[in-house]
């Protein structure tokens, strides 16, 4: 059911929504044509005026980011971040599967705005089907003359390539992504230099999330005001929210930023699974601080409202947790994830993530002590802020929020030496 505010998802569900013919029927590539008739600076300004903020997690204004590219005569690159590894996040996969041409058109717009000569779409290696869809869309665009030499007869040359990752969450971090593109280990780089100064192949580079780029054709076609019609003053437009966990209808929902969280859960997602009670929500991907059910009251799905509640909108990955879920086991899943994914360059991150996983592991087995909880908080506090990339902070986030917010549950678990024998989740895997 298409709503008026469906910008990114307007073609999803159409037959062959991933094909050029379908995309052209709905006015596809008109925005790219229009952009190439504009001054590159005006393209950046239009995106800035629309208030589009980066959808990869940090929420930095996209149009502003584009203006950081130096205007010298070195080749410039756009890297599109399709690594989508933050647990709970599954939106870029659907953009790539269902409307890859919207992404390709956005790439043309972004590259013209920055006067880039090539774009690399860095896609996580497991996404074989989405990567194929993007590659097919690129091939179709070349065949039409929308990519390659002399695009739309404007004398502009642009090449677009896909590049597959190979299984490393940290490669979603922009400088790790660049290293990985260059054929190196995906380890983040020390900044400065920042990618616009020295990025991919030592050249000026901008890294943007798939969803950020896919939003630009609408903005160029309809103008900033049309985009700002949706959302709030500081969180303009619509956003894809990935809802997973204990709701009746999990999935990707495009809604205006600022929509109440409870409306997303109750109306769009059909309410809680098995009508269980809401226990907690992780609003923006696994690294964002967890909110207890009562903290979710009155929260809206925009950057400011979620920040005011003490968490982050992040990548828009909302993990809904029902009553009956064991928070000790759930935290243990996350600490092990971050320990597995630390690239190991920084001692606080490498040691801290490993140590936290070890401690939550022993607590889960019934071998922990109450002092372990304070130890965990202290490790988490000390490891963040002193590292090359924010993965250490991401790993610290869940520990620093789960334990204080569910302290009683953790203490009871430790005291009563519960173990995995008890079902940690209220859902039985069946049906």
């Amino acid at each position, binding site marked *: 059911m298409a709503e008026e505010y469906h910008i990114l998802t307007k073609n999803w569900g159409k037959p062959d929504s991933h094909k050029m013919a379908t995309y052209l029927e709905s006015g596809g590539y008109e925005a790219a044509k229009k952009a190439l008739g504009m001054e590159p600076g005006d393209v950046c300004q239009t995106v800035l005026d629309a208030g589009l903020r980066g959808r990869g997690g940090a929420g930095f204004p996209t149009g502003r980011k584009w203006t950081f590219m130096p205007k010298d005569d070195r080749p410039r690159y756009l890297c599109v971040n399709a690594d989508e590894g933050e647990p709970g996040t599954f939106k870029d996969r659907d953009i790539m599967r269902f409307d890859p041409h919207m992404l390709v058109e956005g790439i043309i717009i972004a590259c013209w705005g920055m006067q880039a000569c090539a774009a690399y779409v860095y896609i996580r290696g497991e996404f074989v*089907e989405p990567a194929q869809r993007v590659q097919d869309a690129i091939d179709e665009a070349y065949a039409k003359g929308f990519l390659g030499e002399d695009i739309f007869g404007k004398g502009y040359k642009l090449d677009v390539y896909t590049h597959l990752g*190979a299984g490393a969450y940290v490669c979603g971090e922009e400088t790790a992504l660049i290293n*990985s593109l260059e054929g190196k280990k995906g380890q983040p780089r020390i900044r400065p230099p920042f990618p616009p100064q020295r990025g991919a*192949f030592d050249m000026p580079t901008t890294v943007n999330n798939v969803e950020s780029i896919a939003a630009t054709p609408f903005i160029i076609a309809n103008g900033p005001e049309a985009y700002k019609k949706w959302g709030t003053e500081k969180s303009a437009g619509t956003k894809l929210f990935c809802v997973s966990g204990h709701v009746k209808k999990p999935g990707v929902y495009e809604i205006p930023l600022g929509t109440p969280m409870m409306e997303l859960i109750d109306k769009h997602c059909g309410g809680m699974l098995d009508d269980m009670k809401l226990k907690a929500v992780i609003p923006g991907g696994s690294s964002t601080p967890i909110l207890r059910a009562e903290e979710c009251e009155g929260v809206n799905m925009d950057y400011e409202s979620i920040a005011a509640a003490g968490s982050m909108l992040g990548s828009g990955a909302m993990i809904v947790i029902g009553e009956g879920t064991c928070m000790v086991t759930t935290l243990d899943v996350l600490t092990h994830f971050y320990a597995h994914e630390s690239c190991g360059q920084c001692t606080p991150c490498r040691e801290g993530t490993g140590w936290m996983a070890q401690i939550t592991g022993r607590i889960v087995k019934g071998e922990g002590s109450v002092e372990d909880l304070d130890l965990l908080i202290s490790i988490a506090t000390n490891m963040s802020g002193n590292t090359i990339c924010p993965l250490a902070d991401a790993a610290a986030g869940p520990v620093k929020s789960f334990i204080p917010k569910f302290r009683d549950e953790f203490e009871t678990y430790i005291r009563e030496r519960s173990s995995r024998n008890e079902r*940690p989740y209220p859902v039985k895997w069946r049906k």
Partner: protein
Amino acid sequence: MGLEFSERAKGEFEKVLSKYPTREAAILPSLYIAQREFGHVSLEAMETVAEMIGVSPARIYGVATFYTMYNKEKVGKYLVQVCCNISCALMGAEEVIDYISEKLGIKAGETTADGKFTLMRVECLGACGNAPMMQINDDYYENLTPEKVDEILDKLGADD
């Protein structure tokens, strides 16, 4: 040199080289080509890639071991990877692992005696809205139920 790319793989390699301004950027795609050619990325396969790119084998070894999708050891014909991260865990991923373990008679990390299936626990695969889920070779299988798992594994188990 122990291993050599087939003509087809050499063609793929040349195509990959043309995508990047440096030869080294072709390392990740070349390791995939090697994996498809030789089944897994052995030390010999790494040497072949090193020679083709023109870097030291140590450089390739460093990259190949950093990334989890390059299988340094032989794996079964079907690599069954069950996501056990948060959204899948909430929906019963541990039970999926237990179920498949019992069905195939192997623990996570092991390969069946006939070399057909390898079972692995993996981190989030970016399909959390359709939990629990698993990936077998290139394909995703989502919203798993015991019946679905039976159907998928029985079908793969029956072919040769």
